[in-house]
């Protein structure tokens, strides 16, 4: 899976592209784990180019929540497509993970970090 990255002052933005299923979500999971290992605890993931997500893809995000919380970090997701948003909402994960509303400035979520 192709994952573009942009390093910002207070966080890093990831831009995965393609489908996040049991086969393809491993790359994103490993990249997030690497970032956390290196001490990057503020992570933004733009899901604009993710066309499908299964439980394996959802698991990538929720499995890192606890360690980010432990380090006072944060994960913010944005630009979810309709089908991806449906999967998050179906399990109530939108209550556990910060999902930026359309047009919101991502910087604001990390400005006190």
């Amino acid at each position: 899976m192709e994952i573009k990255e942009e390093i910002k002052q207070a966080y890093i933005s990831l831009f995965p592209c393609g489908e996040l299923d049991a086969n393809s979500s491993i790359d994103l999971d490993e990249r997030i784990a690497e970032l956390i290992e290196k001490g990057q605890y503020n992570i933004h993931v733009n899901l604009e180019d993710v066309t499908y997500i299964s439980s394996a893809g959802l698991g990538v995000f929720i499995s890192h929540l606890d360690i980010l919380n432990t380090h006072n970090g944060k994960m913010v997701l944005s630009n979810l497509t309709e089908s991806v948003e449906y999967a998050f909402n179906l399990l109530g994960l939108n209550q556990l993970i910060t999902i930026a509303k359309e047009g919101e400035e991502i910087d604001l979520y990390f400005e006190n970090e």
Partner: protein
Amino acid sequence: MKAYLKVRCNKEFLATIREFMKDRLKDLQVSGQLSNQIVLAVDEACANCMIHQHQCDNYSTIEVSIYREEGTLYTEIKDTGKAFPIDEYEPNQIEEIVKARRKGGLGINLIHHIMDEIQVEEKRDYYVYRLGKRIDPNLRL
């Protein structure tokens, strides 16, 4: 008529199953969000068979078929692996999964949230997982 697909238990074929499901659902006049939901639930069930029942053994296969019976769309997964009682499964608590930092455990929840009927039928030397989704009975084919 049942549409039918047989694939190896390799996770790379999950995308093939999703394409098959989308195309057959379109043939059955099902599209949009309803189609996406059914595709997601079937993807979860197939991934479960491949990963947990066959350990992604490339020499094992599963078969997926889809058909309509009046107001319900049925997808059947024929699997020669050991049985996985998804029909009796207690959905996992999300908070526990987060706390345990687990990546797995959400698939069964998705299947139970989406599907109206979940059955596991034991045959002589294989199992059939049958997932049913009620649809508008007036949908014409």
